[in-house]
């Protein structure tokens, strides 16, 4: 598992614990809205990931839409990390 993926998974688990939400298995195919987290939960997740990973790919670009599945969500972060790496 990539380090970005494991970071995202552990942050989702952390937010779910705080919101007292029981998560389904976190597969790539999971539709984010079926995870049980609400909109505030995802808002918190994006803020936490910005602190741990150092970027928020959604706010950084107007062209990035919020994805539907967990796999796509992780992909958005991995792509943003590659772009940042290439630019540095």
């Amino acid at each position, binding site marked *: 598992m990539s380090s970005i993926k494991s970071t995202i998974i552990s942050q989702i688990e952390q937010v779910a614990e705080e919101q007292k939400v029981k998560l389904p298995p976190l597969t790539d195919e999971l539709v984010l*809205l079926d995870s049980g987290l609400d909109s*505030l939960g995802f808002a918190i997740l994006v803020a936490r990931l910005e602190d741990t990973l150092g970027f928020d790919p959604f*706010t950084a670009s107007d062209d990035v839409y919020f994805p539907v599945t967990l796999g796509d969500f992780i992909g958005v972060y991995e792509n943003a990390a590659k772009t940042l790496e290439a630019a540095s």
Partner: protein
Amino acid sequence: MPQRRSKPLRKLINAEASGSFLWPADASVALGDLVRGTSFGGALGALAGRSVVLATPDQLTTALALIELDGVARRLVLCPPDLPADQLGYVIATAQTDAVVAGAGGPPAAARDLAVQATCSPAIVPADVTLADPHDTEWIMLTSGTTGAPKMVVHTLASLTAAIKPIASGSAPVVWGTFYDMRRYGGLQIFLRAVLGGTSFVLSSASEPMSDHLARLGLRGVTHLTGTPSHWRWALLNPSARAISPRYVRLSGEIADQAILDALREFYPAAGIGHAYASTEAGVGFEVNDGREGFPASMIGSEGAAVDMKVVDGSLRIRSVRTAAHYLGREASAGPGAALLDADGFVDTGDIVELRGDRYYFVGRRGGIINVGGLKVHPEEIEAVINRHPDVQMSLVKSRKNPITGAIVVADVVLRTQPGDGNDRSAELKREILQVCRDRLPQHKVPAAIRIVPSLDVFATGKMTRHHA
């Protein structure tokens, strides 16, 4: 007793509303039954002339109580769903409440000593309710305040319904829905539109996932649907957003940016899309239906308009019959923000606008107020809670841009003792501080992230440097 400016709500319900319903998640209540019945058993008389706090657990019973008690009670206090239990006592004292309406589970602890305890039940019993000598009932709505105590805003049915136009006869049937809770201004407007227009209304439910809510809205055939830009951003992520085909989509409560307006236009090409400016204090200001963010400059200072608007020091000020009358419990205090209306009767909205070409655009809020998905957050309130932690010297709560809720709350915290190299309790302290916040604040006010910082900038006046929008 002042003369009522409008008929009581019960008498305003469209009498032909036989085919109209209130639809919460798990029930269906015919408006016509309510016109000819009561949900209070025989207890309605005991509430006459009282100051009544509505502490019901759900929106439906609040809706029923409002319909029955307008004109009967002297004052009705609507408690938002996230009112912390320890603030109910303040609300009761400030509104000089002497009666409570609760659900089947009984009233909350702070209301148990009130003189009249009534239960409102969704089971409506036929009754001939006559309203002799109706009161000009005050409707008290709560909004977030800087000190943690809510601001209590005084409306009447007349001010709350002044923006509502009758539905044109012969138009296709309307079913209203909203993502708002109807105990807040945005949701209450839709409830009143529905009952005055004799149309059905699909109520939201706090515990219901968005996908279930959308599916339910689809099943009920919703035609007019309202929410904040954040609600809509969240809804459009959901495959169930295809379950509805609204004729009218409305956004309010936050800045509607061009991105969300365009996304809605693309998603619901057949729908009219409007964004409205409204707040609990200012009432409904205006609606913009041209699909563009901001609003035409010609709306400012136009003579003879239903709503007078002006811009003072960059902030939008609004005067109309839709604004609230005053705050409860703040009359005696002085200083900025104590009075709801300025000397000329305008509400200072605190929303900062900027003129570009022939249009005004919203750029943020004065005073650092943060808008989390349509809910106002005063940084000072959260800082006061964080500062309760014994290891915290000071804290600064800030807004951070967020792709879902528009903004989210984060905090910088200075500790009393700097963490030493071998003794870093930062992670543990952050957890403890968050726990203090979770114990005392509604979820949207709990910081998403806490940073331990060595110091904060402080002005010579002793005030912290806030970077305003």
